[in-house]
């Protein structure tokens, strides 16, 4: 009896796996599988990360290059002319001073397009030769503008694509043709009367960034900030980034109060773009609600430019967003900057 039992046990051990054996095998197997899955997941993540980083920032870089290239051609064609007393029968020149029929403008985006347009908007005139009727005339005058706008892509994607609208921060380019350039429309009657030209509406014509039939098209997705600092020739010294000619970033060449930069293009412009990648943008996305990226207090005083950039970088890394800051000092070739602009009493 005893020997029989022993034999039975030995036989049983040889014919089948016991539960503990199976459990151990399964545990090892599942551990291996988990490790493998983890590794594949990591590789997949690294791939998507680098892929979206490369493609996203390539688009931003191209946009930045195009913007800098066009901006460097900005022109005002300023000239010296008499300024007359208005509404007097005898026309006596009041002063002799620099004047221009074109405009260079850096303005707070919220003032023009509301809260969907954070940071600055840049508008200028340049001989870019963009015309429907005369494509071969390469030096025709064009208005051009750049700004960041938060909106959806419904009107910009091919009509055959029926996907959910993508709400993103985008760098928009305002590019009316020469035929649509309304720069003279406002200023002419005023110049005829001997007054200074007033520019108000040329850059608003076809500006609507939500309609693809207007003159505004997206240039790059996921650009969260465009900071434009007009500077005079004095270079930035270390921490001191304050711009004498544009303390609050805003600059209007037709401004009559600050005579220093009346009818002049700034000789240097610091362009800064902050781009995030698509994966980060998807993480930020919250339907049509604009995710907060740039605080309202940021980029309102050029003295704080460096700390604002640092704060923004900190904020983006705190939210674990992937970003890149593009910055460059663009020299404007046509600028003949001088602090003397004619009469000093306006």
């Amino acid at each position: 009896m005893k020997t029989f039992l022993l034999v039975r046990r030995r036989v049983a051990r040889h014919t089948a796996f016991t539960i503990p054996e199976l459990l151990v095998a399964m545990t090892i197997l599942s551990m291996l599988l988990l490790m493998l899955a983890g590794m594949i997941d990591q590789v997949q993540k690294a791939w998507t990360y680098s892929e979206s980083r490369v493609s996203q920032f390539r688009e931003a870089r191209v946009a930045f290059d195009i913007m800098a290239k066009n901006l460097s051609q900005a022109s005002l064609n300023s000239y010296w002319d008499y300024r007359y007393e208005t509404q007097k029968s005898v026309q006596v020149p009041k002063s002799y001073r620099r004047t221009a029929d074109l405009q260079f403008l850096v303005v707070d985006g919220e003032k023009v397009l509301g809260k969907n347009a954070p940071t600055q908007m840049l508008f200028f005139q340049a001989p870019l030769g963009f015309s429907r009727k005369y494509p071969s005339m390469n030096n025709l005058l064009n208005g051009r503008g750049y700004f960041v706008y938060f909106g959806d892509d419904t009107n910009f994607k091919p009509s055959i694509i029926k996907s959910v609208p993508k709400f993103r921060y985008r760098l928009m380019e305002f590019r009316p043709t020469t035929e649509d350039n309304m720069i003279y429309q406002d200023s002419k009657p005023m110049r005829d009367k001997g007054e200074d030209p007033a520019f108000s509406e040329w850059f608003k014509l076809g500006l609507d960034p939500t309609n693809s039939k207007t003159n505004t098209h997206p240039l790059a997705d996921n650009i969260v900030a465009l900071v434009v600092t007009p500077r005079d020739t004095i270079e930035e010294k270390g921490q001191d980034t304050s711009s004498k000619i544009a303390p609050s970033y805003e600059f209007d060449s037709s401004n009559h109060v600050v005579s220093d930069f009346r009818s002049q293009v700034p000789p240097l412009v610091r362009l800064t773009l902050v781009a995030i990648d698509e994966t980060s943008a998807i993480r930020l996305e919250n339907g049509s609600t604009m995710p907060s990226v740039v605080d309202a207090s940021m980029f309102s005083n050029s003295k704080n430019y460096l700390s604002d950039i640092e704060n923004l970088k900190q904020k983006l890394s705190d939210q674990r967003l992937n970003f890149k800051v593009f910055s460059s000092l663009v020299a404007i070739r046509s600028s003949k900057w001088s602090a003397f602009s004619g009469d000093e009493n306006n």
Partner: protein
Amino acid sequence: MKPHSSSKAFSLIELLIVISVIGILLAIAAPNVFSLLNAHTLTGEGTLLRNKLTLAQQKALSGNADVEFRFFKMADLENAESESQYRSFQLFMHNSVGEMEPITELLRIKPPVYINERMSTLIEGGTASGKYEVTEGGKKVEREYKGFRFKPDGSTDLGGRSSAGDTWYVVLVQGTENLGGTLPNNYFVVQLDPYNGRVSEYRP
């Protein structure tokens, strides 16, 4: 005492069952794996086209010259008898003597990925067209092309389309059955903004 002999090896029945189970599992998995591989080629070809469009724009910007992007109508590489379609593209640049000179080799969209000509507005509305001698299967042949130009400021010579919201795009699909007028489930659309030359892609 000798253990029972049958417990030492698998029986034929057991092996057959295991093999058939493996077979069934493979049969279930195969179509998925194939479609995954195909989707991968679609992504690959789409990215190639997208990258070359960006390259053309950057060449125009950096070289300060016109760059022409040409789509060539040709037969399938493996099957010379197949119908000519727009399957290849090549970049040309204005050289110093004013001629268009190729700056890349002829690049092919490889089957099973095809350009859906009917839906691709960028090919249908190309501003340049003509014939150019290309090498096909070792021989030089004249092939029809359609194309457009990137201008030195990064824009194109295409102009806007009249219908609301539409711009220029190329539709890539997989399989000849998807060359009709409707967008299949899996597609790769490369869009080009005529005004600023921006290239963007759309995938399901």
